[in-house]
């Protein structure tokens, strides 16, 4: 019997738009936010204020919308980026650093100690503004679990409400995901959010495996749009939670095809006829 709650974090407007070649207009973004709110999606990763003034203006307009959903600003862990999010008026702020040695060595060209210090610097700054902090751990699936926990402990000590466990390159299957998340959850001081990528078509299965292992949040995108082969799709995640685990995560099912159509149109893509649940040859569960 699985007892943990499981909340959906939509990242269509951040990770979805980061997909190569995709640009959402301001009007499309606002429509998507309103539809996500109508669908009862509690958490929406709205964008990256560090992208520049034009992006910030759009994000400020989103923040003024009369919605229940919490809008989150995504940030690299540096103070300039974070200041842009604070200046926009965000109350929910995501700060991300890579945690695998591969990323620390080759991308950051720093050390584990530098990562931990950088996190502390950013979180201390955020704490002084009294915002809700969410911490991201990029490439967590290839990281040393002890280091991930050390990182999670720092996040918790500054009041972060959850930590994102990102399978950045989609290198896990569902068995590995379950084992890794289960192992971490036993010792993590804060709830885990799973963030799966679909490089081998396993993002949904890995998201469900994380739920079974005790994760309490999942970041997903509408139709799975995202970097490379994409992310776990919202519609498959919501339907699978109901089908396999009889769990209602609160999302309004009738809105899922609406959202799918909206995201596909805005991204300039076409929906594969065979795509589960929303393709025109698929079984429609909603």
């Amino acid at each position, binding site marked *: 019997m699985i007892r943990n709650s499981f909340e959906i974090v939509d990242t269509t407007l951040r990770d979805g738009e980061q997909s*190569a070649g995709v*640009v959402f207009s301001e009007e499309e973004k606002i429509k998507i936010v309103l539809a996500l709110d109508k669908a009862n999606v509690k958490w929406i990763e709205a964008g990256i204020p560090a992208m520049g003034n034009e992006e910030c203006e759009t994000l400020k307009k989103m923040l003024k919308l009369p919605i229940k959903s919490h809008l989150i600003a995504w940030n690299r862990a540096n103070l300039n980026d974070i200041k842009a999010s604070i200046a926009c008026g965000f109350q929910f702020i995501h700060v991300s650093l890579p945690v695998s040695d591969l*990323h620390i060595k080759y991308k950051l060209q720093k050390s584990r100690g530098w990562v931990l210090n950088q996190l502390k610097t950013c979180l201390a700054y955020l704490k002084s503004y009294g915002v809700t902090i969410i911490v991201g751990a990029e490439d967590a699936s290839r990281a040393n679990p002890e280091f991930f926990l050390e990182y999670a402990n720092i996040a918790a000590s500054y009041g972060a409400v959850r930590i994102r466990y990102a399978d950045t390159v989609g290198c*896990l299957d569902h068995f590995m995901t379950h084992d890794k998340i289960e192992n971490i959850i036993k010792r993590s001081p804060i709830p885990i959010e799973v963030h799966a990528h679909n490089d081998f*078509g396993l993002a949904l299965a890995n998201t*469900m495996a994380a739920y079974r292992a005790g994760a309490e949040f999942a970041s997903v995108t509408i139709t799975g749009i995202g970097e490379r082969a994409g992310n776990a799709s919202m519609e498959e995640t919501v339907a699978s939670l109901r089908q396999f685990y009889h769990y209602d995560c609160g999302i309004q099912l009738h809105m899922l095809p609406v959202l799918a159509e909206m995201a596909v149109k805005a991204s300039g*893509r076409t929906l594969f006829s065979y795509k589960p649940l929303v393709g025109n040859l698929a079984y429609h569960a909603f």
Partner: protein
Amino acid sequence: MGCKMNRKISIVDHTVNEVLRLGYYNPDDIHLMLSILKKYALDFVDISLHHVEKSGGIFEADDLCNRIRCIVNCSEREIVLAKELGFSNIIINCSLGSNISIYSILESALKKACDSGHTIYLCIDNAIEFATEVTGKLSPLVVKYGVERLIIGDIDGNSDPFTTYDRLRDLLKSEQCPIEYLGGNEYGMATANTLSALKAGVEYVATSVSGIGVPGMAPMEEVLMAARHLWKNQLVPDGSNLAIDCKTILSKAGILLPDEKAVIGSRVFAHESGIHVDGILKNPELYEIMKPEEVGLSRYLVIGKHSGTASLMYKFRQMNFSLSQDNATELLKMVRNVAISQKKPVTDLQLELIYSLQMELVGYKEL
């Protein structure tokens, strides 16, 4: 990364069946598809008798018939017809459920198939939903009629991958003939369920290229490449032509492959965002779990709204234009504005134009 598993994997194809369902009957195209599929651990190609009848018998007296199994219902008429059409391998397909007389109907069909000289495969397309005791009732029939293989189906995709693993592992312990797994993709779990079947010890699994079918199937490319790259299974065939092979097969049926299709889509090794491109330029392993050429694709960098200065400088170096960090920052603003206004990436031609404009603005200083 991941567990090593070096068991043999055999693929049962359902791509051709979907192509026939769509009404594409060109024998040359079907032969081309079969010859391509043979490169990817192909065991059999399954085709519904219904589609064969509609196709006008394109498989008659064909040497490839030995690689094809004809799917029939528990119907003596269909079993006889399959034989008349030249098929020696048949799959008798049925569902367990409320019909309590299914076992006697099935026995009649098995007897007819046996008398007709068929090699018999038995598919229970919802078997995964039933406990081993229920499927255990089939064992005497399997033995009595010499069923070659029992196909455990989850055609509606109703089982999660952990349940699939547990049930198939239990079945493998008790069943007296080889087991095959057939999983549908209604919820998007077919790849994971099929990997669960393989991990439980099943050798034969049903797939289709890109998961096509009604209902959908596990995409062949995902199952094979997950086994090869996540499980380091060296028995899985090389994928260096996989993308073009899959695209060729689908194109024969007029199916356009989505650019973002996992493993084989043309854009799964495209990178735009500043963070990712910066990483890729430092070490591709940072953002790619396998090399593009391992599936027959190429990496490419897209310049657009999410680009950063590192990708811009790299791109201009490729175009033989020099660019300082400061000017890259300025130029990036223009690039982003163009991408936003046109709602798509910036082309090389546009980049050249933006570069020229910037040169004029700064009076050719330092560029």
